[in-house]
């Protein structure tokens, strides 16, 4: 059963890896692989040697992802703290609004956000793209962090207060260290969202050297410069997946615990 599940989950990924590493002739007739000599790195060379290089897209996505994650945490931590200190109706109404926003399919916002980009001339600006991304990530981030803050023992802050720590010191030496696991898992989920987001990047970014990974991928999909382009497709999917693969493998615990502990308790 486990083997079956793994085959189902990972099979398509291995197919991509295989397709990216063979010549087009072998790809359409894998029987040839027995003859040997049909492996190639040509697909990767073509992608990385293209102008702009595929590495550029990875870098762009990393820039947007880091900007988004930083901005989201900067806004979400104080908000979650303030929210937890609210009482009764105020807290519940804000939380209900956040839950509604977290459920909302963000693709429906693309047109109005494009209007925003036009009005303030934010198109083709990677850091400006972090602004809507952070806004769209905030509902989940605030909900996750508020749960984490609610789980902290309330005596802790009183004790720190009695020790004579002022508000800034309490945040720095008490709150943030205790929240670090929740901060890590929230950061990863926000980064994943930003790395994978497609419709808004598609409408905000038009310059070839500013494309993020998903938009670059779809452009490769739409181009017909390759005779049998699936080798190049596959190489693009492998290169685009590798950073995330590393991230997920490194932070597997944070991701699983972040999703499993925070999302529900609300």
């Amino acid at each position, binding site marked *: *059963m*486990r083997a079956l*599940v793994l085959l189902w*989950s990972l099979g*398509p*990924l291995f197919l*991509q890896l295989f397709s990216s590493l063979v010549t087009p002739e072998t*790809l359409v007739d894998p029987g040839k692989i027995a003859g040997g000599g049909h492996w190639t790195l040509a697909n990767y060379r073509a992608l990385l040697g293209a102008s702009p290089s595929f590495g550029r897209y990875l870098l762009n996505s990393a820039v947007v992802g880091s900007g988004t994650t930083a901005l989201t945490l900067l*806004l979400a931590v*104080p*908000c979650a*703290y*303030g929210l937890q*200190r*609210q009482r009764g109706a105020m807290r519940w109404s804000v939380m209900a609004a*956040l839950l509604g*926003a977290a*459920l*909302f*399919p963000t*693709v*429906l916002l*693309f*047109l*109005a956000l*494009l*209007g*925003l980009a036009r009005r303030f001339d934010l198109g083709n600006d990677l850091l400006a793209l972090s*602004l*809507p991304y952070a806004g769209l990530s*905030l*509902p989940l981030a*605030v909900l996750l962090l508020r749960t984490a803050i609610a789980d902290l023992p309330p005596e802790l802050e009183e004790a720190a207060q009695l020790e004579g720590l002022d508000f800034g010191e309490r945040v720095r030496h008490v709150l943030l260290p205790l929240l670090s696991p929740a901060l890590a898992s929230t950061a990863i989920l926000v980064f994943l969202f930003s790395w994978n987001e*497609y*419709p808004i990047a598609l*409408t905000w970014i038009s310059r070839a050297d500013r494309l993020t990974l*998903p938009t670059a*991928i*779809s452009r490769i*999909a739409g181009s017909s410069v390759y005779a049998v382009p*699936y080798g190049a*497709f*596959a190489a*693009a*999917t492998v290169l*685009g*997946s590798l950073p*995330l*693969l590393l*991230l*997920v*493998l490194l932070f597997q*615990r944070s*991701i*699983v615990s972040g*999703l*499993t*502990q925070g*999302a*529900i308790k609300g």
Partner: protein
Amino acid sequence: MSPGLLEGLLMLPALLLLALVFLWPLGAMAWLSGQASSVLTGLTALPNGGANWLRLLGDGRFWQDAGQTLRFALVSVVLELLLGLGLALLLQRPGRGRAWLRTLTLLPWALPTTVMALGWRWIYNDPFGPLNALLGLLGIGPYGFLSNPATSWLFTVLADVWKTTPFVALLLLAGLQSIPLELRESLELEGAGRWQRLRHLTLPLLLPYLSLALLFRLTQALGVFDLVQVLTGGGPAGSTESLALYAYLNAMRFLDFGYSATVVMGTFVLLLLAVSLALLLWRRSQPHRRPA
């Protein structure tokens, strides 16, 4: 400073940004849906007295897409909940390498949808793709998975199920972990079999998690965009086009922003209806539950 004020101020920046990306767009689009704004008007907005909405009501393509989007969402969400429950039960079973199994099964969810949609396009390729190679071994095919208007939507569902089931499983796994072990053991002592335990203990306690997964997946599936845009482009013959894709095409290809906004708002209304209906049905099916 009064005690509540500081906390309120702490929330302000985040709430302002939230208003900017959620509330303002909805308001702006509600307004734009009442305007003519296309290449014909030089992209300036001119009030056209509800003409967009009248056009929407009579737009066969909109209603066809609405039906297709709903069909996609219902079938994929039901499959994802069922398979996700099975996967969650499997991932909960103790055993060697459980942490690795959890991580590896989660991978499809973590990767960009556009990336894997491209991968599935090759898997479905006619006649060279791996699926057709498999059919060839069985002596059938090749089959045009993405070129047959009657069935291609099923293969968009399959790709979505592959990608999103792990996420549902993870949410449900959280629910499973919240069930006290003693409860299970005491049922076991009373001689309840595996099926009975699932029905009388696990499923009832999992209900809040199942509802959250259902709500979240339903709203996201009704907004499906990335997958169909890259996998099929809405084709063949528009048979996989979703509402979000239609809204996108209206703005970016037909350059009709006013009507695109109307399609977005129409989709939003249908989304609210679908969610309310789902909640209503869900509540109806739980006659014994008391309100919290």
